[in-house]
């Protein structure tokens, strides 16, 4: 009972509650302050307030997940952190430097959609970013070989993406991100298109990579159990305009795997997430 208190409901009354995601400890790897995003419709018809204001600190080396109803601006948040889109207002810092006008070095992103280049082999897809890195050919080959092995793709190095399953293509995209050795990995529903079993196993893969690389991981998902299983902390986003409603600490050990779903505390975490999300999801569906 005591442990249960510690991880879930009690977190609500912890000091972090009002500035929901300010870093409780450690150093902020990514720092967002008052970040908002407003889209102007090109044909007119008013602006769309998609996001924020959001304050959020990602601690160096943590696994942070975001859950939220569909259309709440989760992907927009990710693209703003990645520097793919600029915020309308507010500030974002990555490793102490403001992100402005482009993707900073050391950030890797894996998208939900299949981002393999269909005209390149698996090996060339993975080596795509490395070609421009200025690394020696030997080092590039070594990194690609290692990534192929880590992702279980060694036998498919010469295959084209069209010959692979959806899960394997997603592993190619993860491998392509890994070889760049990013310090911040952003995952935008990377398993959204995969079946449940593959998702669980891919989740374990990501946990293993997170442990081995020491990178900070920021995961966007609509699956509460996925967030609860993978993350150290989980941010719950509201319906549009997306704001952070709550952050939940899971308290899992670093060397966890998908078997945490059997832990009684797992139910407490998902229960609390659903508690915050239910009303927002109804709002997103257009119900009061």
């Amino acid at each position: 009972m005591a442990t249960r208190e510690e991880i879930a409901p009690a977190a609500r009354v912890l000091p972090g509650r009002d500035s929901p995601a300010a870093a409780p400890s450690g150093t902020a790897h990514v720092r967002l302050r008052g970040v908002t995003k407003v889209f102007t419709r090109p044909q007119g018809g008013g602006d769309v307030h998609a996001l924020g204001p959001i304050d959020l600190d990602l601690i160096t080396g943590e696994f942070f997940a975001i859950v939220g109803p569909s259309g709440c601006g989760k992907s927009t948040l990710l693209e703003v952190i990645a520097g793919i889109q600029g915020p309308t207002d507010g500030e974002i810092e990555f490793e102490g430097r403001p992100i402005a006008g482009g993707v900073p070095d050391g950030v890797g992103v894996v998208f939900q959609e299949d981002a393999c280049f269909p005209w390149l082999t698996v090996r060339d897809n993975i080596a795509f970013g490395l070609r421009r890195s200025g690394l020696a050919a030997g080092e590039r080959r070594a990194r690609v070989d290692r990534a192929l092995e880590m992702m279980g793709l060694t036998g498919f190095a010469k295959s084209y993406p069209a010959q692979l399953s959806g899960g394997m293509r997603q592993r190619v995209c993860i491998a392509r991100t890994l070889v760049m050795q990013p310090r911040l990995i952003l995952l935008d529903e990377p398993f959204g298109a995969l079946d449940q079993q593959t998702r669980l196993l891919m989740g374990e893969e990501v946990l293993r990579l997170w442990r081995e690389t020491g990178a900070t991981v920021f995961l966007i998902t609509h699956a509460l159990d996925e967030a609860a299983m993978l993350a150290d902390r989980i941010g719950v986003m509201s319906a549009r305009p997306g704001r952070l409603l709550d952050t939940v600490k899971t308290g899992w050990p670093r060397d966890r795997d998908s078997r945490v779903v059997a832990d009684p505390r797992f139910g407490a975490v998902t229960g609390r997430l659903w508690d915050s999300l239910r009303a927002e999801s109804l709002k997103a569906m257009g119900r009061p």
Partner: protein
Amino acid sequence: MTRARHRIALLRIAVLAVAVGLLEALCRTGVIDNFTMPPPSRIVRDLLAILASGALIPAILKTLGNAAIAFVLAVSVGVTAAVCIHAIRGLREALDPLFATYYAIPVLAFYPLLIILFGLGDVPQIAIAFMLGVVAVIVNTLNGLDRVPRVLLKTARIGRMTPLEIALQVTLPYAVPYILTGVRLAIAYSLIGIVGSEFIMSKGGMGFEIAFAYMNFDNATMYPLILLILVVSITANMLLAAWERALLARRGLR
């Protein structure tokens, strides 16, 4: 799968053989008199004789050379122009109506004007062939560039690629099967442009020789040259089509 494809290939060859055989029979029995058209076997023999004699080789080289120049220009200028037009939204919107109606313009009608401007040489003919082909390349390249998935562009941005790198390493490679459709059209159009303008007014070339032979009832020259143009155009087109199929198959699209 491959067996079915073999059957289709055999069927196509059979259809072609029957058609040529029928034509041969009609010519030999006199239904089509030899003054109108010699039998196909005779045309092939005449063609071999023309090639062996070498008398028309300069004309053939002039036509194919000019067509090749026009083709290379149409493809290189067309692809480059498409990338630029694609990058500038306003330009794209301004030019769309032109592309939509371009092939309603009889480009050959500008030939006399081009002769006045450049003289009766190769330049006006290459210009006509280029004008015919370039827009097909532009339109098909734009079609391919329009289809590049957003996620690939986002991936390029994460790789912090410059616009030129994105064009050369992401959008153009993605568009290659679509560009090839334009390239095939450009081959046909450059031959049409060159031979057509040689027909109208020229100092030499296959079109000129065909017209000259026609005026002189010289079937032994006219038909073989027509056959040669057909063979060149169809062979080039089929090779490109095979390449296109291979690319699409590799991408799982066919």
